[in-house]
């Protein structure tokens, strides 16, 4: 009975029934991560590489266009491993084919290309994760991304992050404390991205399989400030946050194009202050994120008898 119930529990955005088409499946990155995703249990039903339609990639049918892939396989989500100069077009194609979740892993897409994509998406019901993201994983159910599956563990913590390896670090800390995750979403490190902290917080707040959310932010932009505002107005679940870059010099690009402090906006200290004021628990030391989540969860359990 318990098993039957669990089977029907939905995670956010993706779950065990998600059917994935990989755009750029025959490229180096696309091929490698398609294997990794399949191994994790993700249902990869199709691939797209223009000019290679009709071929097969390790048993997976390859199509010329996303529309063909959707018609023939019923794919409802996309993983994009396409070089930067063609990636924005690949996103547009996936959105135009009305895929529910579009995950763009590509790093280095020109900002102005994403300006067009962002506007196009406003009239669509598709959800874009990224670009420049490690992807999304709902442990034990589905992985669309490049993260190592084995560090994750099914559970009830939602994780949202702007970075890659720092997310692995946090997930690893949680798993080592036997705290599992419901879903982990990398929203991407670029200046213009699809879903934001606020969008994902909204999903986690409504998600019955999530009890607490961890936000991993960094310098630059206003995403964390907006998250603080959303939390204050709309959230009942606790949120723990870490902001990377308190030692970053202003005006420099620290790896992510989005991580630039310009004109006094987006500094780590300001972000931390705003998050704390909203009632979010902010962890200052990156080695203590896991134990802080454990502490907040323990308090919540004793209060609400979860």
């Amino acid at each position, binding site marked *: 009975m318990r098993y039957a119930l669990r089977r029907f529990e939905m995670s956010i955005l993706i779950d065990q029934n998600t059917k994935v088409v990989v755009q750029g499946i025959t490229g180096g990155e696309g091929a490698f991560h398609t294997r990794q995703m399949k191994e994790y249990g993700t249902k990869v039903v199709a691939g797209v590489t223009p000019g290679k339609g009709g071929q097969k990639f390790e048993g997976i049918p390859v199509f010329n266009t996303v529309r063909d892939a959707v018609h023939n396989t019923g794919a409802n989500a996309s993983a994009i491993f396409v070089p930067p100069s063609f990636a924005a077009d690949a996103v547009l194609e996936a959105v135009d084919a009305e895929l529910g979740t579009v995950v763009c892993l590509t790093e280095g897409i020109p900002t102005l290309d994403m300006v067009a994509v962002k506007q196009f998406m406003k009239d669509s019901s598709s959800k874009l994760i990224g670009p420049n993201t490690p992807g999304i994983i709902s442990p034990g159910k589905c992985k669309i991304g490049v993260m*190592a599956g084995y560090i994750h563990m099914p559970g009830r913590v939602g994780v949202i992050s702007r970075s890659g390896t720092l997310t692995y670090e946090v997930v690893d800390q949680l798993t080592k404390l036997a705290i599992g995750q419901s879903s982990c979403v990398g929203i991407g490190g670029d200046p213009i991205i699809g879903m934001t902290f606020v969008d994902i917080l909204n999903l986690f707040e409504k998600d019955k399989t999530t009890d607490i959310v961890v936000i991993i932010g960094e310098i630059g932009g*206003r995403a964390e400030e907006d998250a603080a505002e959303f939390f204050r107005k709309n959230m009942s679940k606790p949120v723990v946050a870490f902001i990377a870059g308190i030692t970053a010099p202003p005006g420099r690009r620290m790896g992510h194009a989005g991580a630039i402090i310009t004109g006094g906006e987006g500094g780590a200290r300001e972000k931390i202050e705003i998050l704390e004021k909203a009632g979010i628990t902010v962890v200052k030391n990156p080695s203590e994120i896991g134990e802080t989540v454990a502490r907040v969860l323990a308090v919540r359990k004793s209060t609400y008898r979860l």
Partner: protein
Amino acid sequence: MKIHEYQAKALFQSYGIPIPRGHIAKTPEDTLKASQTIKKGPFVVKAQVHTGGRGKVGGISIVESPVEAEAFADEILGTRLVTGQSGEEGKPVHTLLVEEALLSKMEIYLGIVIDRTQGCPAILASVQGGIEIEEVVRENPGMVITEIIHPAIGLRPFQLGRISYGMHLDGKLIKKMGNIIQNLYRLFLDKDCSLAEINPLVVKKDGEMVALDAKLNFDDNALFRHPDIAALRDLSQENPLEIEASKYNLNYIKLKGNVGCMVNGAGLAMATMDLIKLSGAEPANFLDVGGGATTEMVREGFKLLLSDEDVKVIFINIFGGILRCDTLAKGVVEAAQELCISFPIVVRLEGTNVIEGRKILVESGLKFTVASDLGDAAAKVAAAVNASKRGEF
């Protein structure tokens, strides 16, 4: 990517944005000749450096005669200009821009950036030109006009009107202002700018509008489709270690401290710097070897750390994913064997192939301090820094 003012002004000119009469000069003699060609003084001589705040530290001089211009050039060429924004080491001055000095009756700010929240280009304009726009936003937010541009429908005449009327410009200026905004926006889109700024845009006594200063920054991700812009890069304005790093696709930024760190992933690299600081030490750099680093990249990254004379302790923090721990360990050992290392190295490895990676480090016979997790690593780095202060290494 940044370019010099004179390069930005050349682009302005080709896009129909009026600029002052001027020439570049690389020697005092050139400066003399340049000002003689302009004929009538006074002249403005401006140091060409990739940093703001030049005027406040003597990087710009207004002179009455070509001889004075030559004297100023003699004084400033070959020096390093240290401004409030340049960092301690400053930027080398090897080029000057000599221009006619203009008398203005009005100074306007005009800028185009990408508004991250809206995901669209945004035009900022203010009648309070000549000072930093951030200052105007802080002190007098009502004085800044913002227009968001929808990428599909583009910049519309009503928006140009709202900017000009909002600044209370009169008749003839409205048309001129509209043209300049349209031309700057066209340049912004054509060349994939991340910032296009005219501060100040002056209205001369005779009513003409001229871009007195010019600042253009470009989206690094889009340089592949603009070889003409990429060719404008001035390596002398960048840190030599950072240039070396970019050859190997490494992301390196020099900082002030003495703990050299090598990390994979930008977020984790920043968090590692923060951790070092929390443990009481100072990071010497930001070095992100990226998610998919090769043995060669790791080796070169490690050499880069060692070539920084400030480094006294090295901290390697890797969370293996795509980059496997054994690949990393091989690169580190190769580099360490090649260059004799006399100071402590703290290594923290986690993730894919971590056991193989740790084994390679241990079997190399080199002295590595292996940390089990981030907290442990911080403690070991702090201990190593203290030991090095006491001269134990």
